[in-house]
């Protein structure tokens, strides 16, 4: 990402922030506060990940007065967030924040990161305090049982039309998913979170309704298994999070272990294709989700792409053919649609699966060749 148009001191701090913050921060709504654009761009909005969502803070530098620390405007919901005035144990953070501002050095590229990290910590503490003050016995009880878990973030949300809700982002499973997959697949640790949303302020004499639950994960985990496919254990009457979470984690653990073992099932399938299709041009060695082969039908040479989902072998692979000889003037090669209308049983041996697909493609490749030749002659 380039930050053209910013004066160098702002650009340096922004770059450092983006590159060193532990999660992905977005920068939007860039503008200049000056009457003329002589100083350059000096205002922007940061979208900072918090509680499986984003908080949006406006950062206001003054390009004409670089020595001053930037002003920060928080969201409209957070009128009561005053990091400079936090007291109590949280107040230590408040004084740390005051020091960052008073010691501001515009030439130090690390300052903006320090400021944002400290503010985010303060924000977390502020939200925790607000949630703690909510007048709801059940919520208070729930909080007391799970607060000891590391890494929980919480947030009160309310709007004009919406009822007050408390949202929790609970990181699950201590297990290091990254280490479970051979081949060091991911640069960043993959994590799974449970989002728990409680309505606030309703007093029930009978058993309270379950909170809204949603599993979320870091994006790249999808190569291993799809978080949407995980069936959440049911929330039984009278349950609390302290009971539900270990239950969920046990089930997730099993799911992850099973997904890891399915990688090798896909691996064996790709290997079983090679006696018939030859060595692949390229195959995904870590998740075994795709493989491309080179095949021929007469003098017609084409690619065969296999796409193998995490639901394999329940779900059969999708196959696509791509000509190596027919391209449009823009250079786009002729491709077949995704093919999956071939005989299939998840219970077959991998070699039999391969044979059935091979037989199907012998016929299908003739259709494809005809289709390619009809639109334009072969080179």
């Amino acid at each position, binding site marked *: 990402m380039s930050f053209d148009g910013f004066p160098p001191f702002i650009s340096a701090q922004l770059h450092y922030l983006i590159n060193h913050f532990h999660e992905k921060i977005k920068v939007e709504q860039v503008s200049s506060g000056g009457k003329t654009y002589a100083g350059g761009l000096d205002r922007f909005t940061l979208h900072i990940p918090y509680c499986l969502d984003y908080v949006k803070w406006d950062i206001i530098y003054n390009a004409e007065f670089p020595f001053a620390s930037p002003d920060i405007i928080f969201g409209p919901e957070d009128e009561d967030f005053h990091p400079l005035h936090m007291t109590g144990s949280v107040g230590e953070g408040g004084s740390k924040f005051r020091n960052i501002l008073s010691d501001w050095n515009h030439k130090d590229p690390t300052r903006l990161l320090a400021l944002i990290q400290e503010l985010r910590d303060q924000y977390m503490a502020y939200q925790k305090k607000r949630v703690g003050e909510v007048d709801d016995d059940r919520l208070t009880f729930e909080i007391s049982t799970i607060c000891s878990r590391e890494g929980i973030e919480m947030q009160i949300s309310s709007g004009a039309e919406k009822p007050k809700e408390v949202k929790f982002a609970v990181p699950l499973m201590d297990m290091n998913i990254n280490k479970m997959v*051979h081949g060091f697949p991911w640069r960043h640790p993959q994590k799974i979170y449970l989002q728990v949303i409680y309505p606030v302020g309703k007093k029930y004499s009978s058993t309270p309704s379950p909170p809204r639950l949603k599993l979320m994960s870091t994006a790249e985990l999808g190569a291993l298994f799809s978080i949407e496919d995980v069936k959440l254990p049911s929330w039984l009457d009278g349950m609390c999070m302290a009971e539900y979470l270990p239950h969920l984690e046990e089930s997730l653990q099993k799911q992850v272990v099973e997904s890891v073992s399915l990688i090798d099932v896909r691996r064996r399938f790709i290997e079983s294709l090679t006696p018939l299709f*030859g060595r692949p041009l*390229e195959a995904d060695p870590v998740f075994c989700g795709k493989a491309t082969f*080179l095949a021929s*039908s*007469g003098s017609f040479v084409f690619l065969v792409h296999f796409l193998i989902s995490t639901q394999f072998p329940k779900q059969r692979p999708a196959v696509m053919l791509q000509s190596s000889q027919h391209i449009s003037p823009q250079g786009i090669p002729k491709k077949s649609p995704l093919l999956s209308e071939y005989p299939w049983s998840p219970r077959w041996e991998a070699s039999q699966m391969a044979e059935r697909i*091979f037989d199907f493609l*012998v016929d299908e490749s003739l259709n494809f060749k005809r289709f390619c030749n009809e639109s334009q002659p072969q080179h």
Partner: protein
Amino acid sequence: MRMSSSRPKEGNRGKMKMEGVEGDASAGGAVRYTLNPTRISSEDILFCVDVDAESLLEMKTAGVTRLDSIKQAILVFVNSKLSINPDHRFAFATLSKSASWLRKEFSSDVESTIAAVRALSATTVSSSQADLTNLFRLAAHEAKKSRAQNRILRVILIYCRSSIRPHHQWSVNQKLFTLDVMYLHDKPGPDNCPQAVYDALVDALEHVSEYEGYIHESGHGLPRTLFRFMSMLLCHPQQRCPQDDCDIPKPLVKKAAEPANGEDNVHASISR
């Protein structure tokens, strides 16, 4: 005509298959394939196209020069490679007496590939030599940058001259990138020496290539042969077998009726 290497080589690379035989299904000395759980890197592929006047010689298809076919083949290659993995990137250089940049930035954008390919044009005068040293220098320099981004660098040299043997000076310990070669030439005759040129290319490949490099040659001027060989160069260097064990493309035919060669069979109808 049979190209065979006059040098003893580790593999049998010198012994090229007879031209015209397509789809050799034998798996010479093939070991059962295993897909090892080792991560592979995305590629930075540097095309170096010989733009000597000999690239303007016509292919068997009238009105189509070697350079025309090469341009098409590069477009197909880039599209194919990106459909396998959209993270691969490409840059372009040309070779006349020595190599020079055509498009230096590696990019996975197809539009910019089309623009670079369009900009390929041949020199009017034939160069008296082909020095690959600068190409290897450029490649080695880029390879360091690629490696810093967890990528690997590959050079695909497309060479067109039938009598000019390329030469190079390179330290034998520097194997920083993979080198593949596609060699288009005239039929051998008293006035040329494609065999010697081929040997020099094999020499260069074995000298500098980090992973197993592949070399293909064709003298009969059919564009589809060029396309076929270029498709075989789609192989990811970190997942290759020795060239002599290559058994692709496999013909998709019903097992009982495998033809002797890969050409379309024209069956005479049998009247009953």
